[in-house]
């Protein structure tokens, strides 16, 4: 049953929220031992919430558009009184005294929170292998990773442990795992969803977004969490356009650009077929089967009445380098507060400075330390201009080029991830290889634009492939609409494993 189906049934009194919660909790208890999607299952809380909703339904009170819908939260979203770990030893035992704005909004919409999901430590990674609590496995093939860093949320939705989930996306951390797990994942425009209560990785890039088994569910979840929040200064103070009703509008007359540089091809090449993936002007390493699905998707949109062309955004290839300076720089500052003084882990020593060093040495994993060092270096006196400053200029250039492209097309199309889900351990020895997972998703974070990954067929290995639809700022309604059109024409047997 879809999330919207659950909500409709609960609202109509056809199903109790309790019975829905029990179904999902039952699937979790039977299946999550193998998958490892959850850091914490909130069975008691979920049943209590479900009972409250049922009681409200019984009294004839409005219970919200997501009434009784089981939702999983990435474990970097603060939940009042409930451990929030970021899958790090550093936050062991910490219970936030407040809930994130998105959590409050989901509850207000009637959602039932079933648990906190695993992630790469502090959202740094693309496979959910960098978790202090062990990896999450891909429900489609448990020898494979679910992607990351929101791998737990993606896997939870793919495995039917939750009807919806929230993730956070700093460089692709919602869309890439959505693609690898065969679900829908969406990153809203920067500022469209409040970051208040999201434990920060890179503040200028972080954005919370939904996972769903289908586009309509993800859209409903997005509508529930989006909107201005006075607690987040970067929150956009504009009304949220409802997206649900636009989903069936189709793509007739829409102009769709296929980004050559993100499809491993040269910009001057008219079509995707025949690109070898090694062209110097495009990103490397996008697999042939993934490119084929993107081409299928482009053709499907064309058949549905869209006008499809290949477009060029030369600076898109700078994204990865710029990202790996900006994101670690901000992270090095954001993660400074884990010093052992006020909360979480403390490893004692003779004085505060040594305690600080001991705590951070013990509390952070290797990838977190690597990025803190990278970021500290990038911001250092004498290096700022060459690294952080240059990355900011690349970001500005990218914004200008995307703005130019959006004068000619309405949305852009490209792969979400370069490959289907890979084996656990396949890329852990080579950080750069791991970073390449985000090459197609990073540009939207740097520009702040919205983007969505929607399942579209399978790769040669039979695993799901996601295609990405990107749009200009605040074009959520448009990209959901295109994603819905793709979903209607997607080949194969749907998304569930």
């Amino acid at each position, binding site marked *: 049953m879809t999330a919207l189906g659950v909500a409709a049934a609960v609202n109509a009194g056809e199903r109790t929220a309790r019975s829905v919660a029990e179904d999902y909790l039952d699937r979790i208890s039977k299946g999550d031992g193998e998958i490892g999607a959850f850091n914490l299952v909130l069975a008691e809380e979920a049943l209590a919430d479900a009972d409250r909703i049922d009681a409200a339904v019984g009294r004839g009170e409005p219970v919200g558009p997501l009434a009784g819908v089981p939702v999983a939260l990435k474990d970097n979203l603060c939940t009042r009184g409930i451990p929030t770990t970021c899958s790090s030893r550093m936050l062991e035992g910490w219970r936030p005294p407040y809930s994130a704005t998105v959590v409050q909004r989901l509850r207000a919409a009637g959602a039932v929170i079933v648990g906190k999901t695993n992630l790469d430590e502090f959202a740094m990674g693309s496979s959910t292998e960098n978790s202090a609590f062990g990896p999450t496995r891909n429900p489609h093939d448990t020898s494979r990773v679910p992607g990351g860093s929101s791998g737990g949320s993606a896997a939870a939705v793919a495995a039917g442990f939750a009807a919806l989930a929230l993730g956070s996306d700093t460089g692709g951390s919602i869309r890439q795992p959505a693609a690898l797990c065969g679900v829908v994942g969406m990153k809203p425009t920067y500022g469209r969803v409040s970051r208040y209560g999201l434990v920060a990785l890179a503040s200028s890039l972080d954005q919370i977004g939904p996972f769903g088994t289908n586009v309509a569910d993800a859209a409903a979840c997005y509508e529930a969490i989006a909107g201005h929040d006075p607690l987040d200064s970067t929150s956009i103070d504009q009304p949220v356009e409802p997206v649900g009703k636009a989903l069936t509008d189709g793509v007739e007359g829409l102009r769709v650009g296929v980004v050559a540089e993100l499809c491993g091809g040269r910009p001057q090449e008219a079509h995707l077929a025949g690109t070898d993936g090694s062209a110097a002007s495009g990103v490397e390493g996008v697999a042939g089967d993934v490119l084929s699905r993107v081409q299928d998707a482009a053709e499907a949109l064309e058949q549905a009445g869209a006008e499809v062309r290949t477009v060029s955004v030369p600076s898109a290839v700078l994204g990865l380098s710029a990202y790996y300076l900006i994101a670690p*720089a901000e992270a090095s500052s954001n993660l400074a507060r884990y010093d052992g003084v006020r909360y979480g882990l403390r490893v004692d020593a003779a004085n505060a400075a040594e305690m600080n060093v001991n705590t951070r040495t013990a509390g952070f994993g290797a990838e977190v330390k690597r990025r803190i060092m990278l970021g500290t270096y990038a911001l250092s006196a004498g290096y700022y201009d060459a690294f952080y400053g240059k990355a900011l200029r690349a970001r500005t250039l990218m914004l200008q080029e995307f703005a130019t492209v959006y004068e000619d097309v309405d949305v852009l199309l490209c792969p979400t991830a370069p490959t289907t889900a890979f084996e656990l351990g396949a890329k852990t020895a080579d950080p750069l290889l791991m970073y390449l997972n985000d090459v197609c998703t990073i540009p939207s974070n740097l520009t702040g634009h919205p983007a969505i990954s929607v399942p579209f067929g399978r790769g040669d290995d039979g695993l799901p492939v996601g295609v990405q639809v990107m749009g200009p700022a605040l074009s959520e309604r448009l990209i959901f609409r295109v994603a819905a059109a793709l979903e209607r024409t997607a080949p194969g047997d749907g998304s569930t494993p």
Partner: protein
Amino acid sequence: MSGTPEREGTLADGWELVVGLEVHVELSTATKLFCGCANRFGDEPNTNVCPVCLGLPGSLPVVNAAAVDFAMRLGRALGCEVRPAVFARKNYFYPDMPKDYQISQYDQPTNTDGCLELPDGDVVGIERAHIEEDTGKTTHVGGGGRIHDADHALVDYNRAGVPLVEIVSRPDIRGAEQARTYVRELRAILLAIGVSDARMEEGSMRVDANVSVRPVGSNELRTRCEIKNLSSLRSLGRAIAFEAHRHVDLWSGGERPRQETRHWDEAGGRTTPGRSKEDAEDYRYFQDPDLVPLAPSADQVAAIDAALPVLPAARRAALLAAGAGAVSASDAALLVERDQDALVRTAVAMGADPGLTATRVSNDLAVDDWSRVTPDGLAALIGLEASGQITATQAKQVLAEMVEAGDDPASIAERRGFQAMAGDDLAATVDRVIAGNPDEWQRFCSGDDTDRKKLSGFFIGQVMRSTRGRADGAAVNRLLQEKAGG
């Protein structure tokens, strides 16, 4: 000579002192800079805290518009240009800093390029006045109780996130006393515009001094030392004087000071070395991505300008102008500081003698509550004294009674039987005193100016004693000079 504890006084010949001050001022907004917690001194530790000012994971800052308004008000009062500004993070680890970075302003501060005019007319340039958040407060307890030998430290985060403005002067200050005057003047402005209570002893105003010396006539800026931990005006003056002499001694001995932070040791009367430039922290400033740039509109700045009260410098100038040369600069400064300038100006406008009015009020109205003294009462009092109807001593007593009871001076003088001894009575009394002190009179008549000045004081005192204060000192002096043939 280096290492000698405290030494006051002027610099050795040929050396000039160069001082720039960095003054941190806590703004007296109701709430903190980035959250809604109360901004209040003296509460139970860690009671005015929330996720934001504790820097809890996931919390975000939202700027307090009132704090920005206060900061801009201060900027305009200092003649600064108010500019679009961005907040930056200053990164360093310290336990009393919740996020281990301080939100401040770096290359784009709110206020730049102002100046502060001192009462003597000297002008000190203001480089910038930027907004930042305060840190928590650490108390070291147990063991020896000092940082290096304490058992543990307690941190109070009530102060964390309190809005500060850091006012950075240009190195235009040329003396320890001038530095003190600068701080006093800045404090007067802060109080006048109502943005801070500016109490050094409570830490709501904190001063660091950058000190260097150079040969007189040179324009160079030599190696400076930054002195911290200056908790009073007295410490500020002593520390600058000490540090200046230390630098002169070093340069004169063929050495050079190290660029470093130094701490003022109040008990020892000396500065002690802290962090040097070589091991100074790299703060890795970058724009805070959690906050949006501040973009004050021209209308906003115009509204601030329109609401600014008349500032101390303008008030002093107005008073001096009203005094037409008869009011001294130091009286004017004092009267403005005590908020008595309007009283004096109004009395003068009513015809009171300006010099006498300023002197009487500055010397004899140093009380907290002088609300019963009205300008016309004051003008009447000065009229009685100036016309010789009552003596200076009597005028002081009448003024004291006006403070208490608020009556008009004529009835007070009448009730007390005050009236100046005049004419023949006074001359006879003076003759009697001269006769009783022949040696002193001899010396008065034959001595030089200094002797004469000293002895006229003696004779006036004697006359006052024998008339129980009813004589007018100036009149006595006139008689003495006449009789001595001078």
